[in-house]
């Protein structure tokens, strides 16, 4: 019975992945992608990876879905109205090109099918490596937390997690690098939408409390900095949509501090421990629990700030291209 559920879920995920790439309209693509993310989250639950499920639902499906939805305002008018026409036109114009394009495509698809067959065999015949469950279980009492995933993330492999917090900040910096962006734009859009304001008023405390709960529970169960950070980022995104861009309302230095706090404190703590003769991120077992909670809280704040800023910046990219009228 349970195998049946898994098979249905697996087929659903594959179907949705296919459909999101094959869908004719971009809107469909984005919504099917969102559904795909949720299907994957269910798969994580079935595999007993609750932390991963929350992360997937919150960041990969949720946050990314919101970014794609926001992007639809740019792309969709052209795609929904003109895409089919232009594609039809292209077909007419490129009748003679079709043949030359067909062969590499067929070769590519055949290659992919072959690749798939080999990968299926490779996965089917995979030797049982045993994993690291035993090592984690032995060392868990020294890690300062009770939840094994949190122990791995913030103690055993803290270095990876530190770099990952850096990657989120880098993602934001990279978005700045594309240009045409003002982080500190003036809050010129008044929140005239009463419903939106009510939604914000209602959700802000709930999101905040739920985020704090996830952060605290990460010590002993599924949850932690990333999940909490995304929930807090949702507050920032809601405020932004309500015409209150967070980064414009706080002083510049405070914004920068919020963005860099997680990465900076994590590293400085590591350096301080190193100065005391330990290696980087080597927490003394007695204080590990407290230190991890502080690191996680600050990391969650920085993640929330960075995700909010990423959304805010992408949200500004809504002006129509200048030459679009002349070309169409």
């Amino acid at each position, binding site marked *: 019975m349970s195998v049946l559920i898994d098979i249905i879920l697996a087929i659903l995920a*594959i179907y949705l992945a296919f459909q*999101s790439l094959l869908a004719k309209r971009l809107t469909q693509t984005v919504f099917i992608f969102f559904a795909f993310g949720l299907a994957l989250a269910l798969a994580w639950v079935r*595999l007993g990876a609750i932390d991963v499920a929350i992360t997937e639902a919150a960041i990969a499906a949720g946050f990314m879905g919101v970014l794609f939805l926001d992007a639809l305002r*740019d792309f969709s008018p052209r795609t929904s109205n003109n895409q089919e026409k232009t594609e039809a036109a292209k077909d007419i114009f490129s009748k003679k090109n079709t043949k030359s394009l067909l062969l590499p495509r067929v070769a590519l698809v055949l290659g992919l099918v072959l690749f798939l067959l080999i990968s299926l065999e490779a996965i089917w015949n995979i030797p049982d490596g045993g*994993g*690291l469950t035993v090592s984690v*279980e032995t060392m868990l009492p020294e890690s300062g937390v009770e939840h094994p995933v949190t122990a791995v993330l913030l103690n055993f492999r803290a270095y990876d997690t530190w770099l990952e917090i850096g990657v989120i900040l880098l993602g934001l910096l990279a978005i700045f690098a594309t240009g045409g962006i003002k982080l500190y734009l003036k809050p010129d859009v008044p929140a005239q939408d009463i419903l939106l304001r009510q939604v914000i008023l209602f959700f802000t405390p709930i999101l905040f409390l739920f985020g704090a709960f996830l952060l605290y529970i990460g010590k002993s169960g599924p949850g932690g900095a990333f999940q909490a950070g995304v929930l807090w980022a949702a507050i920032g995104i809601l405020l932004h949509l309500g015409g209150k861009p967070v980064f414009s309302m706080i002083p510049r230095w405070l914004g920068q501090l919020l963005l860099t706090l997680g990465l900076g404190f994590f590293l400085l703590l590591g350096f301080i421990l190193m100065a005391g003769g330990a290696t980087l991120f080597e927490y003394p077992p007695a204080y590990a629990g407290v230190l991890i909670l502080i690191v996680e809280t600050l990391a969650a704040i920085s993640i929330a700030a960075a995700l909010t800023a990423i959304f805010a910046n992408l949200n500004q990219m809504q002006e129509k291209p200048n030459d679009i009228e002349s070309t169409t």
Partner: protein
Amino acid sequence: METYQIYSLTSAVLFVIGLGGVFISRHFIKKIIATIIMGGGVFLSFVSFAERDALTFADPVPHALVITGIVVAVASAAFALALARRIYQLTGEESFTKDK
């Protein structure tokens, strides 16, 4: 067939769909989504092996790796989306044309 086997096989299928999508899809957004689907496949294989290696609890190391991986993938995808939107803003193009 056990649960982990179903999902580990699914992971290969998702990876290949994503890989194909990156090459075949034309629209920027679809290419970006294809990379996320690829990532989904990879992460699914990690977690399915974690389930296989479960004792009192599932192997937490792949779970942690996947959480890291998801966040890293989302940061890259958000950057790619920003670039795609910026290109659209500057030129009105939604896909790579042959001469670019």
